Every structure is written in C-alpha cells, then in structure tokens.
C-alpha cells in the first residue's frame, strides 16, 4: 500500500468525522432548550469539525501552498469564534435569554446580588456596558 493511498484513507476518515460533527451540531442546535446549550452544540464544528475537514482536504491535496492557506483558515476561525461566542453569550445573559433553572451553577447571578451597589457615576449611559445606570437614569435639566 503506497503512501498516497494511506493519506487518502486518512483523509476520508477526517472528512467523515468533520461532517459528523457538523451533523451533531445541527441536531444539537435544533433540539437543545437554551441559548447556552445551543451555543455549546454549535461550537463543535466551528473548531474541531473545521480542523478535521481541513486536515482531510490537506491530506487529499498534498500541497504545501494549499496547506498554508488551510492553516490560515484555522487560525482565523480560532481567533474569531471565541469573540463571537463571548458577545452572543454576554448579550444573551444580559437580555435574559439564559434559563437559570437549567444551570447547575450560576456564579454570575450570585455575584450580581452579592456585589455592593454601584456608586453614582458621572458618565452618560453607555448601553450594555453599565446597564444598572440605565434604570435610574434621569435626563438632566437643560441648562438655561
């Protein structure tokens, strides 16, 4: 059995594995009950599934320039996927999309209750960054 045949078989295994992870993500995104659970399911093909698929592609093509581009794709995905997941999770928590009854441990909510009240701030409302300010915010009287 030649080297290329082994590489092809490994490439098939990697492609099937990556596609299976994508399928698992589809099922999880459809069936899981919560935003965080759906995010958890959707992350699988975003990193491991993509790496598997691109490994299969690299094993099949066997070209160094193509390998450089595939590594570039993986690096971009590893850089950007956590940022997107962080933003989605933060917005989901702050707008009440996270179901607390499904969580085993929710330290963030406990910390919100445990934290001392914020001192009054002088800045204007910055939206999502200081949400407590928005509830009490009263517009200043216009200067004469």
């Amino acid at each position: 059995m030649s080297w290329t045949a082994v590489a092809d078989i490994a490439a098939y295994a990697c492609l099937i594995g990556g596609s299976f992870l994508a399928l698992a993500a589809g099922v999880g995104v459809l069936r899981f009950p919560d935003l965080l659970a759906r995010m958890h399911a959707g992350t699988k093909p975003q990193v491991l599934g993509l790496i598997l698929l691109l490994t299969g592609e690299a094993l099949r093509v066997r070209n160094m320039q193509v390998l450089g581009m595939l590594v570039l794709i993986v690096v971009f995905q590893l850089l950007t996927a956590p940022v997107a997941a962080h933003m989605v999770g933060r917005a989901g928590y702050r707008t009440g999309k996270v179901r607390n009854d499904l969580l085993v441990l929710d330290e963030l909510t406990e910390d919100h209750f445990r934290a001392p009240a914020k001192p009054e701030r002088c800045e204007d409302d910055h939206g999502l960054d200081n949400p407590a300010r928005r509830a009490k915010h009263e517009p200043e009287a216009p200067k004469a």
Partner: protein
Amino acid sequence: MTVVAIICGTMLVAAAVLSLVRAERGPSMLDRTVALDVFVTVLVGGIVLESAVSGRLDTLPILVVLSLVGFVGSVTIARFAAVEPEGEGRVRTAEEIAQEEAARAGHDIDHPMLEQPRDLIEPKDPKGTEHSTTIGAIPQAAKAVQDITGPKEER
C-alpha cells in the same frame, strides 16, 4: 471517494437543514445568530468537501472570507441588534431576571423591596454566612436566587 462524498454530503445537508429550521424558529435573535453560525460552518464544510472531491483549489479563498464574515455578522447582531419585540431585548438588571425566573417557576415576589438601597438593609438570612452580606440583605431576592439555583448546601 464517491461513497465518502455521498456520506459526508448527506450529513452536511442534514446539518444545514436542521440549523436553518432553528434559524427559522429560534425564539430570539441570538438563537438565530447561533444557528446561522452553524450554517456558515456547514457551508465551509461543503466547500471543503467539494474541493476534496474534485481537486479544485480556487475555492479555498472563499473559506477565509466566510470565516471572517460570519464573525463580523454574529458580533454585530449580538452587540447592536439583539433587540426583540415587546421589550424583550431590553437590558435587565439581576433583580429583574430573578423576578422573571421566579414568576416562571410559579412563585410571586413583591417588587418594592428590591428597590431599596441594598447596603441599608441588615442581613437577615442566617444561612448566608460565608459570603453573605448582600445576598442575605435582600431576602426575597435571595429566596429567588435559591429558588433558581437550589439551596446553597447542595452545591
């Protein structure tokens, strides 16, 4: 190769359909965002599979563009457009979230207690001993937290 391509293509198409169903249903905009992220990943997988089957390499720059565009889209939606109808997208305080959870669980707690300044109330909860001051300071809020998360001793 053909058999592998058919198997992988079937799984990828099924994943795309499932994530599109979630994107259509998804109760909130963020659910749709997550589903569309999965869809973009499945699309990348489909392009990779096609490239591996046919051996063409000119589609690979599309993958770079797709990963970058998916990132920008989901961050933008999460940051700016997470607004829902009927005030669902408003930023909530922790007390409001606890109250909604308690209401969902069938309990009812009074609101005005939560509006008092937290540090003016003495802690009354005898169980909240270790890191207790403000979690015991608002009894109903602490009760709501415990309703949500279960009693402290179990953790």
